[in-house]
C-alpha cells in the first residue's frame, strides 16, 4: 500500500530527529509510571494511589524516577497512554483502574521486557501482575459497628456497579451486621457511578427517607458523609480518611494503603526478582487499614471492632467462612470450611437474609 510506504519513509526521517532528541539519557534509575483514572485531587481512590507513588519516591530516593498520568478515561485513550509510558522507557507501570485491563494486556504483549501491574483485574500475563485489596475484611468490621449503632435496625448502602467487588462488600457488611444484630435490614441504592457527589447525595437522602440511620458507601466522593453529618447519623469513610468532612458522622474509614505493595514491587523489579503474581492483601498485609475509630463511639463497640480486626488478621475468622448460604438457600461454603479465592473473585450472589435482588 502506498500510504504505508509514505509513512515508513516519514518514519525513517523522523526517527533520526528522535534520536537527536533522546541523546544520552542512559541512567541506571528504575523508571516507574502510574496511570490514574481520576485527578489526584479526588481525595479518594486516586489520591491514595498517589500517596503510594510518593512513598516509592521517599523509599528509594534518586534510585527511582516516577511519573504519572492522571484523569485517563477508561476508553480508547487508555491504551495509548500506557503504551507511551512503555515506549518512554518506563520499566514498571502500574495501571490503577479496572477499565485499564484489556489495554494493559494489549500493550504488555508488545513490550515483553516492561513489567506491568494492573489493579483490580483478573487477566494476567508473563509480564502482567494483578493486585487488589481485600476491602471486604474492612466492610465486615464496619458492618458489625453499624449493627451495634443503628437504632432503626436499617442500614443504607450506596452501591456503584453490580460487579463482584461491590457485591462482596455488601455481603461482608451484611454478615458483619447480622452477626451482632439478627433484626438488621439493608437498603441498597445503585447509583451506576464511582464518583458523582450529586447522585451520591441524592441516594443518601433516599436512604434516610427509608429509615436508614447508618450509611455505607461503595462510591468515592465524600458527599454521603457530609449529608450524614448534617442529619446527625453515622457513616463510613471510603478509600481515604474523610474525618474532616464528617467529624461526628464518620465512625471509621476503610483506607487503601497501596504504599507497602508499591514499595515491594519496585524493590523486586530492582533486584530482578519480579515475577507475575496475583496479590490480594487485606488487613494483615497492611494494604487495608482502618482510620482511627471516632471518639464519640461507645467503648465496647470500638473494642469489638478492634478485636474483629485482630481475629481477621490472625486468620482466626474468615468473613466468608462456612456456612455461607445464597439467598435461594444453596450452600456455597459448608460449615467449618473456608472459601477459596476463585469463588470470592467471581461472587455474583447475595447471601441469605438480604432482601434485595441483584440488578441485571
Amino acid at each position: 500500500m502506498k500510504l504505508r510506504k509514505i509513512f515508513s519513509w516519514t518514519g525513517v526521517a523522523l526517527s533520526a530527529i528522535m534520536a537527536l532528541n533522546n541523546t544520552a539519557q542512559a541512567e541506571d534509575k528504575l523508571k516507574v509510571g502510574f496511570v490514574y483514572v481520576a485527578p489526584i485531587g479526588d481525595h479518594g481512590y486516586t489520591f491514595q494511589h498517589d500517596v503510594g507513588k510518593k512513598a516509592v519516591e521517599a523509599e528509594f530516593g534518586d534510585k527511582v524516577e516516577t511519573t504519572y498520568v492522571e484523569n485517563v478515561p477508561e476508553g480508547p485513550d487508555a491504551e495509548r497512554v500506557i503504551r507511551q509510558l512503555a515506549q518512554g522507557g518506563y520499566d514498571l507501570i502500574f495501571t490503577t483502574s479496572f477499565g485499564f485491563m484489556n489495554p494493559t494486556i494489549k500493550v504488555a504483549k508488545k513490550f515483553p521486557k516492561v513489567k506491568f501491574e494492573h489493579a483490580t483485574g483478573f487477566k494476567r500475563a508473563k509480564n502482567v501482575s494483578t493486585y487488589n485489596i481485600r476491602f471486604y475484611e474492612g466492610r465486615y468490621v464496619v458492618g458489625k459497628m453499624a449493627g451495634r449503632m443503628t437504632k432503626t435496625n436499617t442500614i443504607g448502602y450506596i452501591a456503584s456497579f453490580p460487579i463482584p467487588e461491590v457485591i462482596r462488600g455488601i455481603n461482608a457488611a451484611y454478615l458483619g451486621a447480622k452477626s451482632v444484630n439478627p433484626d438488621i435490614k439493608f437498603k441498597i441504592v445503585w447509583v451506576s457511578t464511582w464518583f458523582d457527589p450529586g447522585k451520591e447525595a441524592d441516594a443518601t437522602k433516599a436512604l434516610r427517607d427509608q429509615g436508614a440511620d447508618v450509611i455505607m458507601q461503595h462510591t468515592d466522593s465524600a458527599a454521603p458523609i457530609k449529608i450524614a453529618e448534617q442529619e446527625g447519623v453515622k457513616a463510613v469513610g471510603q478509600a481515604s480518611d474523610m474525618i474532616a468532612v464528617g467529624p461526628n458522622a464518620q465512625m471509621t474509614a476503610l483506607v487503601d494503603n497501596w504504599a507497602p505493595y508499591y514499595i515491594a514491587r519496585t524493590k523486586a523489579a530492582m533486584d530482578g526478582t519480579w515475577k507475575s503474581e496475583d496479590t490480594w492483601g487485606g488487613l494483615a498485609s497492611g494494604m487495608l487499614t482502618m482510620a482511627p475509630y471516632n471518639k464519640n463511639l461507645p467503648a465496647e463497640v470500638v473494642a469489638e471492632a478492634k478485636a474483629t480486626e485482630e481475629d481477621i488478621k490472625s486468620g482466626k475468622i474468615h468473613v466468608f467462612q462456612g456456612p455461607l448460604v445464597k439467598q435461594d438457600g444453596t450452600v456455597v461454603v459448608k460449615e467449618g470450611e473456608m472459601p477459596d479465592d476463585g469463588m470470592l473473585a467471581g461472587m455474583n450472589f447475595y447471601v441469605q437474609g438480604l432482601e434485595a435482588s441483584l440488578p441485571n
Partner: protein
Amino acid sequence: MLKIEKRREPSQAMVYITPFIAIALTIICGFLLFAIMGKDPFRATSLIFFEPVTSLYNISELLVKASPLILIALGLSMGFRAGVWNIGAEGQFTIGAVTGSAVALAFYEMEGFYILPLMCLAGILGGMLWAAIPAFLRTKFNTNEILVSLMLVYVANLLLSVLVHGPLRDPDGMNFPESRLFSDSALLPLLMEDGRAHIGFLVALVFVGLALFIQERHMLGFQIKVTGQAARAAQYAGFSSKKMVWVSFMISGGLAGLAGTFEAAGPVGQLVPTLPAGYGFTAIIVAFLGRLNPIGIMLGGLLIAITYIGGETAQIALTLPSATTSVFQGMLLFFLLATDILINYRIKWFGFFKPVAKGK
C-alpha cells in the same frame, strides 16, 4: 495608534490566514504559561506540537484520534451550513457503536468478509435512527433540534450502560460491564503493523472528497448553502426546509454512527461503557475550526488530535496536570473566534506623531 476599521468586503485571504494566526498566538501564550509554571517552555511546546509527528506510532495514534473527529465534523458541517443544529452527534456516535457492536457480537467467533460491512451498515443506520428523533420532532412539531439532540446524548449513554450490564455483557467477564472482545473478522484492518491506525482514516478521506464534491458541484450543496444564508430565498426557489432538516440529520447522524462503529471495531475492539469519549462534542469545534470546509475540517481534525496526544506526552514527560490539554484547546478556540474579526475588519496603524484625521 491602532484603529479597527470595517472592510468594504470580507477578506477571503483572512478566512484562511486567521486559523494560523490563532495557532501562533496559542503557541506564544502556551510558552508564557509554561514559563510561569517553571517548566522548560521550549521543551513543553515542542512536546505538545511536534512530538506527536515524530514517530510512526504517534502518527498512527494521530490518525486514530483524528478519524472520528473528521467523520463527525464533516456530517455536522452540512447541517451547520444549512442552519440545522445537530448538537447530539455524541449520542448518534454512541448508538452507532452499540448497533455495530451488536452485529459484531451476533457473529462472534465466525469468519467472513461480510461481517464488517454489515457492522458499518448497522452503525450508520443506528446513528440515523437516533438522529431521526430530533429531525422528526423538528419537522412535525417544530421543537428545538439543539435541545432534543443534546438531551438524547444522555439517553444514549444510559442505553449503552444498560446494554453492557445486560444483554451485551461478556458471559465470561465476571459480571464486569464490558462486551466480549470482537473476533478478528469484526475488527477493522490496520494501516500499519505496529500501531492502531485503521482503515477508518481512509474512509474519512473518501468522505472529505465526497463532501467537497457535494458542496461545490452538486445541487444539494447549493440548496444547503441557500437555505443557510437566505432561508426565504430558498423558499421562493422551492427548496423544502423540512427536507433540509432531514437531509442534514441523516447525513450527520449516519456519519457519527459510522464513526462509533469504527471506534468499537478499531482501537477498542469491544464495547465498553466508556467508549463515548467526547468525539461528538469536540467535532463541533473541529467543524468551525475548519470553517465548515471539508479540507479545513480534515486539517482541523488533525490539529485537535495533535493537541490531545501532545498534551498526554507533555503530561508524562514533564508531569504536567491533565488540564494542560484542555487549556490548550480552549486557547485555540478562543483565539480562533477572536481573530475572526480580521475577516470583516482591518487593523490600521497610525504613527504616534501623525495626527489622526479629525471629523470626516
